[in-house]
């Protein structure tokens, strides 16, 4: 999923976070150093995104590349070194992505395992109108396929809509959309989540306290995501948002539809990012042409962006410090709130407004980092959460899916290093995850159960 694109404020939009891995890093280190000298030259440097070998997730666009208009010559010469440096730093960035993905999955799995609410079936989203309670297998399959088609088409429509908005520079609209959706996500879903968790653990909490807590949480979250904030706090908020989104998905998607949707989304992701006319690709290219950062609110970035108005030498010194700048991309998600089936909340993520500012008045240092769309986070967590919720092999299956997703992420990042342009992050991981889920559930589980009952070890 390209996390990038799916910020739509529209309520009908389902969560459209597409996760795409984008290498937020600018071109390889040599250009980095060159950039130091060249940066004296002009603003162009500021917009340069270093692209490290990391692959960009399908979210569209290979952003980093186009911004390097400043030193094209140097880049050609130093390409080799760049590649090396790219790969050398690649491991660190992979880990920088591993940690948040792992955290998100842990939160989702922990919640699924402990809070009953998210595994009860209380109705479905409006985007999946066909029920799966049918008597025959064929009918059920048909219904899930139809659900998938509807969901995917909604996502496509929203994405195209977003791209059009972006193309025609309706920034205010997009911003408003994203702010609205993140507002909804931060307040309403947190409220529901907190309520359920408190119910599960039988903790009494009065309304004033609850109101205070949620208000603080939501307000700080809004500030962190859409404006400036400490990097780790931003990352934490992004992770929490992704987890909440994933939980909603897990609750409201019927089983077979969920699996088919996961498969279809990864195919769509692949197409949307790699095809020349794909919406996500167009978004990335447009952003690159305009030398603008792509909606920060939709992407999780492990790179740092130093947005400080400092003199050049200072920024050079700062480069060495690694900070992760998380751009969270909020996917638009339409959720049906549990109580009101007809109200749909569309969540959109608003791009971080600081970006345009920083490019002008500050020297933007982007450390090499990888960007991963938030939609990717969400769908990874949905896969693992569904595995935890519905698999009868319990933890083995969950663990297997977890490892499969991490390996898929590794491979995707490797491909990013090789291809150096935006790549879809979903397909490989989701494919591995699905394969491992179904095979572990059906094949490994009986084997391990039998072994365990005889206490044999392999």
């Amino acid at each position, binding site marked *: 999923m390209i996390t990038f694109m799916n910020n739509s404020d529209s309520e009908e939009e389902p969560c459209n976070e597409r996760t795409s891995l984008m290498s937020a890093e600018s071109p390889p280190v040599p250009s980095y150093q060159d950039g130091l000298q060249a940066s004296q030259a002009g603003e162009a440097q500021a917009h340069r995104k270093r692209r490290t070998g990391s692959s960009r997730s399908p979210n569209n666009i290979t952003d980093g590349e186009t911004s390097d208009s400043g030193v094209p010559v140097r880049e050609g010469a130093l390409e080799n070194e760049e590649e090396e440096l790219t790969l050398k730093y690649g491991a660190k960035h992979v880990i920088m992505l591993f940690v948040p993905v792992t955290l998100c999955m842990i939160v989702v799995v922990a919640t699924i395992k402990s809070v009953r609410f998210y595994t009860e079936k209380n109705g479905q989203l409006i985007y999946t109108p066909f029920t799966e309670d049918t008597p025959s297998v064929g009918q059920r399959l048909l219904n899930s396929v139809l659900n998938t088609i509807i969901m995917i088409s909604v996502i496509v429509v929203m994405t195209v809509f977003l791209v059009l908005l972006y193309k025609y520079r309706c920034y205010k609209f997009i911003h408003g959309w994203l702010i609205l959706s993140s507002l909804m996500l931060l307040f309403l879903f947190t409220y529901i989540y907190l309520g359920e968790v408190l119910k599960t653990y039988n903790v009494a909490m009065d309304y004033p306290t609850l109101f205070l807590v949620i208000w603080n949480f939501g307000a700080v979250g809004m500030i962190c995501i859409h404006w400036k904030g400490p990097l780790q706090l931003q990352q934490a908020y992004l992770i929490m948002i992704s987890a909440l989104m994933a939980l909603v998905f897990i609750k409201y998607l019927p089983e077979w539809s969920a699996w088919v949707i996961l498969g279809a989304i990864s195919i769509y992701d692949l197409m949307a990012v790699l095809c020349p006319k794909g919406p996500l690709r167009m978004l990335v290219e447009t952003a690159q042409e305009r030398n603008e950062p792509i909606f920060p609110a939709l992407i999780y970035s492990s790179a740092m962006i130093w947005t400080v108005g400092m003199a050049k030498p200072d920024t050079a010194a700062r480069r060495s410090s690694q900070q992760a700048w998380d751009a969270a991309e909020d996917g638009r998600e339409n959720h049906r709130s549990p109580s009101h089936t007809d109200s749909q909340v569309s969540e959109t993520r608003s791009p971080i407004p600081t970006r345009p500012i920083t490019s002008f008045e500050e020297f933007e240092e982007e450390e090499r980092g990888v960007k991963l769309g938030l939609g990717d986070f969400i769908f990874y967590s949905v896969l693992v959460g569904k595995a935890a919720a519905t698999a009868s092999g319990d933890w083995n299956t969950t663990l297997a899916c977890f490892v499969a997703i991490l*390996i898929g992420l590794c491979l995707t990042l490797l491909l990013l290093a090789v291809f150096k342009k935006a790549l879809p992050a979903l397909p490989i991981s989701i494919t591995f995850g699905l394969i491992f889920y179904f095979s572990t559930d059906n094949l490994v589980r009986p084997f391990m159960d039998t072994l365990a009952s005889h206490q044999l070890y392999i």
Partner: protein
Amino acid sequence: PAFGLFVFTIARDPLRIIILIAGAFFWLVSLLLSSLIWFIAVKGSDPRDEPLQKGLLIFGVMFSVLLQEAFRFLYYKLLRKAIEGLVALSEDGCSPISIQQMAYVAGVGFGLMSGAFSMINLLADALGPGTVGIHGDSQLYFLTSAFMTMVLIFLHTFWGILFFHGCEHRRWWEITAVVVMHLAVSGSTFFNPLYVGSLVPSYLLMAVAATWAYVLSGGSAQNLRRFLLCKS
């Protein structure tokens, strides 16, 4: 203890974490294939025939052991290629991680995954209510499972080191020794619930493997003494 190993030695270096996860993945794939074979065998046979089922299980276990070792070998090949790539890409011409470290990490990866798969359902059930061994089985089920898992994890780590060393220096007897040891340990678990028959040999084998791996990694009694006495 295995988790402690992870935290202290692996968590610092991102490259090692990747190798660890990849190692776990390879073990998982081998488990998948072996359970596929077992599943096919079981489906194709008579479910009511007890000795046949037991025999099939034993066959499945042995086959799985062989597959695990085969995948360890494949992983070794992959890591060799990766090392060449890393050397080519590094600045100063030498790889950021040595093959021994990789062997160690790969072993830990295998071990963690196998341990996790063996233990985690048990742990989850242990959180709930119940009595151990109520049907006349041994009451030490959890304890012995825990010890067995721990010994397996350590063994996988040592086998990783030995195996890679054997492949590096083309000493086939080392590799066969590892395979035989693995088969022996798995076979000894067939003696469960006669725990003396399985735990004791496993620990002995682990001690043997530990000293062997230690010696191979360049240690010696002197090093050990210095380390224990905290000399500089």
